C-alpha cells in the first residue's frame, strides 16, 4: 500500500500537509553517536548515517545478574489485640528461606502440628496500636459506701459506665447512645402481674432525660471518689492529683452555661456576626493602645524611681558585701561615663547586669522553703495555691539596672553604711581587732589590762561586737593603757619622792638651808614626766591644773583646792566615756550593773587623778 492509498483511506489531502512535519524533524538535534568524528557524521548531511550503536549493557544486565524470582506466600497471621485469637487472616508476604524449608517438611505431616503452628504465627504489626482507656470500676460494697446518689440508681450508673467503656470516654457518642430504660419494678417482674402484662407492652417508667453534663458529672464524681478510695489524696502524684481535682471540681452548671453561650454565638445573624467582628477588632485596638500606654508609663517610672530591687539583698548586708557593691557601682559608673551615648536609653549592658548575675543564686533558698511549705500545706488538703505561688518571681530578663541613689546621712545610719578610706583585705572578725590590741601588749601589761577590765566588770571578750561597741571598747582600752602608764609613772615618782624625801631628811639633819630651789626643781621634773607619758586629751586637763597648782602653791603642803579641781575634771571626762559605751553594753548587761560600772569607772579615774595629784606634791 503506497502512501497515496493511505492518504486516501484517511481522507487526507494528497499533497503537502504531512511534508512540513517531516521537515521539522530535521531540525531536531540528532542523537550524537559516540566514537564517530563530527566531520564524519556531518558527511551525512540531513540524512544521518545509519549506524546502529551497539548497546550491550542492556542485555548484560538482563541476563548477567539474574536471581531466582522472590517467592511470595499467603501467610496467615494473628492479631494479639483481638479478644478472639482464633481469627487468622492472611496476607501476602515474601517467603524467607527457612520458612520455605519448614513448609516443605511440614507438608507431609498431619494436623497435630496445626496447634503449635498457630503459636508461631506472626503477630500483626498493628496490634500495638490497640490502646485501652482506663475506666474506674467499683464493687457493690464500694458503691454502697461511697457512691450512692439521690439522682442516680446503681443500675443506671452501671449502664453509664458500660457505655463509657464501650465508647472509650467519647462523650458525644455516649450521650448520643444513652438510652437508659429503668428496670421495671420488682413485683412487676416476678409478681402476679407478670402473667397479665406482656413485658414489652408494660408501661416502663421513663428514664429521666440526661444531658451530657449530667452524664459527665456523674461519671467524674464516681471516678474521683474511686480514685480517692484507691489512693488517698495526700499520696497522689502531681498528675494524679490534678486529674482528681479536675474531676472533683467538674461544674455542670458552668458547662451548660458555656454551651448555651456557644450555641447562641452560633445562631446569631450575619449582621450580628459582623458587628461582633467589628467590636472584636475595636477591642483589640484598644488593648493594643493600652499596652503601649502602659509601656510608656513603665518607662517613665523607671526614669523617676530609685532601683526597685527584686533580688535578695542579704549579700549586701555585711560591710564586705557592701564594699563589693560599691565597687560594682563604681565600675558601672565608669563604664557609663565611657559609653554614656550608648547607655542613653538604659538598655541592658554587661556591666549593669553584673550585680544581678551575682545575686542569682540566693534565690534557691526561698524556693526550697516555699516547697516545704507547700508540702506541708498539701497534707492538710488544699494545694490549690501551688500553681500561683510556686516560684518567687525571678526577673524574666535583666532590665536596666537603675542608677544607685545617694543616701542621706540618716539613711546611711539606718542601713549601717560606712565609708572607709582603706580596708584590710579579706574578712575579719571585729573581736579579733580587740584581741589584737591585747595580744600586742606584753604579757604583764596584758595581765594588768585584764585585771583592770575585771575590776570594771567588763568581759575581755565582747559578747556583741557591734561596730559601736567595738569602737568604744577600743577607746576604753586606750584609756586603760593611758591609766596604766600614768599609774606606773606615778609609782615611779612616788618612789623617787620617797627617795628624795629621805635624802632631804638626811640633809636637813646636816644642813637646813636652800629649800625652795629644790622644790622648784622637783616641780619641773614633774611637768616633764607628764609631757612624756600623756597623750590622751582628758588628762591634759588635769595636767594643766596640776601644773597650775604646782605653780600656785609652790609649797610642800598640797592644796586641797587643786586636788578637788582635778578630780571633778577627771570625773566629767570619764563619765562621758562611760556614756558612750553604755548603749552598746546595755543590751547585754542589766542596766544596774552598767550604772555600777559607770560609777566605778568615774571613781577609779577620780582615784587615779588623785593619785597623780598626790604624786605632784
Amino acid at each position, binding site marked *: 500500500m503506497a502512501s497515496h492509498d493511505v492518504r486516501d483511506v484517511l481522507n487526507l489531502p494528497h499533497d503537502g500537509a504531512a511534508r512540513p512535519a517531516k521537515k521539522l524533524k530535521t531540525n531536531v538535534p540528532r542523537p550524537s553517536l559516540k566514537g564517530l568524528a563530527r566531520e564524519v557524521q556531518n558527511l551525512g548531511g540531513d540524512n544521518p548515517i545509519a549506524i546502529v550503536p551497539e548497546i550491550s549493557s542492556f542485555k548484560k544486565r538482563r541476563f548477567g*545478574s539474574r536471581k531466582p524470582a*522472590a517467592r511470595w506466600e499467603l501467610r496467615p497471621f494473628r492479631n494479639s489485640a483481638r479478644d*478472639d485469637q482464633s481469627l487468622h487472616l492472611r496476607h501476602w508476604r*515474601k517467603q524467607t528461606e527457612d520458612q520455605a524449608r519448614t513448609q516443605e517438611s511440614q507438608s507431609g505431616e498431619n494436623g497435630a502440628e496445626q496447634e503449635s503452628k498457630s503459636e508461631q504465627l506472626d503477630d500483626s504489626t498493628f496490634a500495638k496500636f490497640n490502646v485501652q482507656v482506663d475506666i474506674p470500676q467499683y464493687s457493690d460494697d464500694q458503691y454502697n459506701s461511697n457512691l450512692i446518689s439521690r439522682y442516680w440508681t446503681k443500675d443506671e450508673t452501671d449502664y453509664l459506665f458500660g457505655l463509657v467503656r*464501650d465508647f472509650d470516654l467519647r462523650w458525644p457518642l455516649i450521650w*448520643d447512645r444513652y438510652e437508659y430504660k429503668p428496670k421495671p419494678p420488682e413485683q412487676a417482674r416476678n409478681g402476679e402481674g407478670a402473667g397479665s402484662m406482656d413485658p414489652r407492652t408494660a408501661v416502663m417508667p421513663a428514664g429521666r432525660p440526661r444531658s451530657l453534663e449530667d452524664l459527665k458529672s456523674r461519671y467524674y464524681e464516681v471516678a474521683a471518689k474511686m480514685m480517692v478510695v484507691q489512693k488517698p489524696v495526700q499520696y497522689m502524684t502531681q498528675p494524679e492529683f490534678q486529674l482528681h481535682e479536675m474531676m472533683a471540681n467538674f461544674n455542670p452548671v458552668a458547662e451548660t452555661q458555656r454551651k448555651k453561650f*456557644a450555641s447562641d454565638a*452560633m445562631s446569631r445573624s*450575619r449582621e450580628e456576626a459582623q458587628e461582633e467582628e467589628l467590636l472584636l477588632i475595636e477591642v483589640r485596638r484598644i488593648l493594643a493602645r493600652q499596652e503601649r500606654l502602659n509601656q510608656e508609663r513603665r518607662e517613665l517610672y523607671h526614669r523617676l524611681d530609685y532601683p526597685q530591687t527584686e533580688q535578695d539583698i542579704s549579700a549586701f548586708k555585711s560591710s564586705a558585701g557592701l564594699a563589693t557593691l560599691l565597687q560594682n557601682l563604681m565600675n558601672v559608673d565608669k563604664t557609663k561615663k565611657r559609653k554614656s551615648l550608648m547607655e542613653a536609653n538604659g538598655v541592658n549592658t554587661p556591666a549593669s547586669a553584673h550585680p544581678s548575675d551575682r545575686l542569682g543564686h540566693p534565690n534557691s533558698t526561698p524556693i526550697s522553703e516555699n516547697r516545704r511549705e507547700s508540702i506541708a500545706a498539701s497534707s492538710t488538703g488544699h494545694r490549690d495555691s501551688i500553681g500561683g505561688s510556686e516560684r518567687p518571681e525571678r526577673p524574666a530578663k535583666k532590665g536596666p539596672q537603675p542608677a544607685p541613689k545617694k543616701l542621706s546621712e540618716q539613711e546611711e545610719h539606718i542601713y549601717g553604711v560606712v565609708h572607709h578610706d582603706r580596708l584590710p583585705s579579706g574578712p575579719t572578725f571585729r573581736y579579733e581587732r580587740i584581741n589584737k590590741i591585747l595580744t600586742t601588749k606584753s604579757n604583764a601589761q596584758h595581765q594588768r589590762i585584764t585585771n583592770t577590765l575585771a575590776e570594771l566588770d567588763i568581759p575581755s571578750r565582747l559578747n556583741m561586737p557591734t561596730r559601736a561597741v567595738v569602737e568604744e571598747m577600743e577607746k576604753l582600752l586606750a584609756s586603760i593603757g593611758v591609766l596604766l602608764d600614768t599609774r606606773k609613772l606615778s609609782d615611779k615618782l612616788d618612789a623617787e619622792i620617797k627617795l628624795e624625801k629621805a635624802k632631804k631628811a638626811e640633809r636637813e639633819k646636816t644642813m637646813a638651808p636652800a629649800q625652795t630651789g629644790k622644790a622648784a626643781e622637783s616641780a619641773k621634773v614633774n611637768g616633764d614626766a607628764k609631757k612624756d607619758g600623756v597623750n590622751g586629751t582628758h588628762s591634759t586637763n588635769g595636767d594643766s591644773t596640776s601644773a597650775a597648782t604646782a605653780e600656785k602653791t609652790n609649797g610642800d603642803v598640797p592644796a586641797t583646792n587643786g586636788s578637788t579641781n582635778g578630780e571633778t575634771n577627771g570625773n566629767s571626762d570619764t563619765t562621758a566615756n562611760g556614756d558612750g559605751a553604755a548603749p552598746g553594753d546595755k543590751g547585754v548587761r542589766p542596766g544596774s550593773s552598767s550604772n555600777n560600772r559607770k560609777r566605778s569607772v568615774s571613781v577609779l579615774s577620780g582615784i587615779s587623778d588623785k593619785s597623780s595629784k598626790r604624786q605632784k606634791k
Partner: protein
Amino acid sequence: MSSQHPLPNTQQPSDVYGGDEVSALVLDAGYCHTRAGFAGEDVPKSVLPSFYGSLKTGDGDAATYRDIFGDECLIPRADFEVKNYMSRAESIVEDWDAATKMWEHVLIKRLQPEKPTPPSKNGLNDPVPDGEGDVAMDDVEDQEKPLAESPLLMTEAPWNTGKAREKVIEIAMESWGCPAFWLSRTPVLAAFAAGKASALVIDVGGANTSVTAIHDGMVLKRSIQKSPVGGLWLSGQIRSMWDNNDPKIDIVPSYMVENKTPVDAGAPAQAKLRKFPYEISQSFRTYEEERLVTEFKESVVEVWRGPGRYSNPGNEDIVRSQPGRVFEMPNGSNQMWREQRFRVSEGMWDETAALPAAESITKAQTIPELIKAAVNAVDVDLRPNLLGNIVITGGTSLLNGFGDRLNNELMAMYPGMKIKIHAPGLTTERRFSAWLGGSILASLGTFHQMWISRKEYEENGAGIVEKRCK
C-alpha cells in the same frame, strides 16, 4: 551484586499507609446500585443496578420465577418483571431472598475467580437455557462455602434495623462461610473516603437523602436525618415537568425506538417504534424510563447556585438570558431547556418551589432543614468542627451547581462559622464513596482487630453485630 540492584517489587509492602491487605471483599448495597470489589482498590470491580429481572416460566399456579441479575440482562423479554430488592422508602433490604441472590451474584460470580468444577457440573454439558444473562447460582449450598477465604465488609443505611443487621451477618456467616465480617454505615465510610473521622455527611443518593453527623468514626444516632428528596424524587419532578410542558413530552425509552429522523426543536418526533411479540411489563418500562430521566439529569438539570433562592425575583430572568441546553429524546424530539432545568431541582432546597408531583415534600424534608436538624441534634462543642468538615456524596449530588448552592445555604444559615465542604471532583469517588471508605477501612492494618470472627459469631449468635458494629 544483588545488593546493588535491589528489585523494588520484591520488597515487603511498606506499612507507611497502615495498610495490610487480607483480600477482604467490600459490598455496598444502595437502592440504585450494588457495588462490590476488593478491599484496597480504588473503584469497585463490579457495579450492578440493584434492580433485577424476574423471569416467569409456566402459567398460573405452575409458574416458576427465575431471578436474573446484571445490567446486561435487563432487556425486553416476555414474562419479565424488573424488581428491586431494596425498599424505596428506606433504602434498606426488603426482599431477603433476592438480596441474598444478588449479593451472591456480585460477590461470588463476579468477583471470585472461576473455580474448576467437575465436567458434570460445569454447565458445559447442560442444555443452554437461555444464552444470555447470568443465572443465579442455585447450587451454592452444596459447594464448599464460597467465601470461606475472604473477610467481608458490608455497608448499611444508618437507620438500618437490628433485625436486618442480624440477618446480614447470618447470611455472610452461614451461607457464605466468611471467616470474618463487619457491618459499617454508609456515611461513616463516606467520611473515611474523604479522609475524615469526624464529619457531617450529606448523602444525596437514589431513594433517599440523608444527613448524618459522624464523630470519631461513629454515627451520632440522634443526628440522623432522612428524607425522600433524592434521585428518584428528582426524577418525579422531571416527569412532572415533562407532563406539564407545552408540548407535553412523551417519555419513550430507547428500547422502544427502532429508528428516528432528526427533527427541529419543538417539532413532533418522527420515529418508528419497535414492536414486540410479547407484552412489555410496566416495571421494565419504568426502569427504562428512569434510565432516560437519569440521562436528562446528568446532562441538563442544574442547581441554582444562589445566593438566595431561585424563586427570588430577578433570578429567573437572569437564567432566561443565558444559553440553555438542548436535550434530544431517544425518539428524536428535542427541545431547549433554560429556566426549567433550574426549576426542577429547586424543590430540594425550597419546598414551595417543588413541582406538583406524586410525592409532595414538606419543609422539614428539604436539604437545608435536614442539615439544620442534624446539627442541632449534636453537642454544641462538635458543631463548629462538623460544619468545617462537610462531606457530600451520592449520585444526585453530582448535579451541576449542587456544591455551590449547599455552600451558600450553609453560609446563610450559619453566618460567622467556618464552613468547608469536601466534594470529591471525581464522579466515581462521589458515587462510590461509601464503597471506597469500606475499601480503605478493610485494608487497614489496625482494622483487623475489629472483625467479627466466625468463632465469635458462633459463640454469641447473630446478636453480636449489634454489640460490635456500633
